[in-house]
């Protein structure tokens, strides 16, 4: 899957903002912004791509990283942030 075109996460002074093509924007947390950046850089990505990134960045157990990645992707899909 890929991130939905026109959606973007911007960061400034420790704050992160998800912006949508229709002009709406939402504050998101640091993990969301980190995973978004990983997915954006990857282009095509899977839950495994995100799980690996969480594992290396935060040093948590692989199964916890996999759960986090899966939950994040579910959230993105629920809000149509992926294609």
């Amino acid at each position, binding site marked *: 899957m890929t991130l939905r075109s026109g959606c*973007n996460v911007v960061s400034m002074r420790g*704050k992160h*903002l998800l*912006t949508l093509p229709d002009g709406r*924007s939402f504050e998101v947390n640091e993990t969301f912004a980190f995973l978004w950046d990983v997915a954006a850089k990857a282009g095509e990505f899977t839950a495994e791509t995100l799980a690996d990134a969480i594992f290396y960045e935060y040093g948590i157990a692989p199964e916890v990283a996999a759960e986090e990645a899966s939950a994040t992707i579910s959230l993105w899909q629920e809000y149509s942030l992926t294609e």
Partner: protein
Amino acid sequence: MQPLSGEEWDGVLSVAAKQSVSGIICAGVNSLPESFPVPDKVILSLMADAERIRRRSALVSGVMEKALERFAEAKPIVMKGPAVAAYYPEPELRESGDIDLYIPKGASGNAAPDGSSHIKIDGIDIDIHSSYFDLGLSPDIEIPSPEATLLMLSAHILKHAFSSGIGMRQICDIALAYRALDYNPSKLLSLWSDCGLTRWNNLLSSFIRQYLCIQAPLVEAEDPESLLKIVLEGGNFGHFAASRRESLSGPAASRKGDTLKRILRKAPFGLRYAPGKYLWYIFTLVKGNLKAPSPPSSF
């Protein structure tokens, strides 16, 4: 540096929006030391504004490429807008309006297929001008050239200063052009003199030096207060002046009446800093039945 109160930050956001410089303010706030406190809501608001401006800039840049391709035969020159954005450290943060193209009279393909001088591509307005300079100026100068660009930007600001009003965005444009362009100062000063615009440019350069701390050329310093008053009164193209907001929602006659009132109110300013051009402008408006020779930009 003293921290700002919440009310002062609200004031910064409000002035930035009114002057169409939210993108520049966002870059400025981002460059403040981490130790300088900035409320979360201010950061989020500026980030949202900056992202909106970036998206619009990308759209306008794409449309500019299409327009240049469409009129390629006539060798158009982009005036203002995306062309001046290039002088900014972060061009995509300059708030974009419409696109102005200069195509000399007689050049093939100097109009839209229906002969009009206004077209739209992907929802972006494109105005095609057969004159490079506002206010009827026709100096003997190569176009494009750094000196011609600076005179064009200055005359554009002057036209709006004594008609609809002018904001910081256009003044930032010329200030950054002064910083970026490799112009010949004596050639520029001689152009000002030939066009009867020396005193006006002295005022504009004094304003730029005092409020933007950018070196702009001048012959003699002027007190920039009168220009600051115009800038603060109506913001971007005067759109935020109370009378303008009322007239914009009224009938066309009310808009024309408001335009005339504004121009007459600027008589002391116009007659002091550019009397010849002010009178020329009034004469042209009267001749055109209160219709401006080139309509003020709508953004």
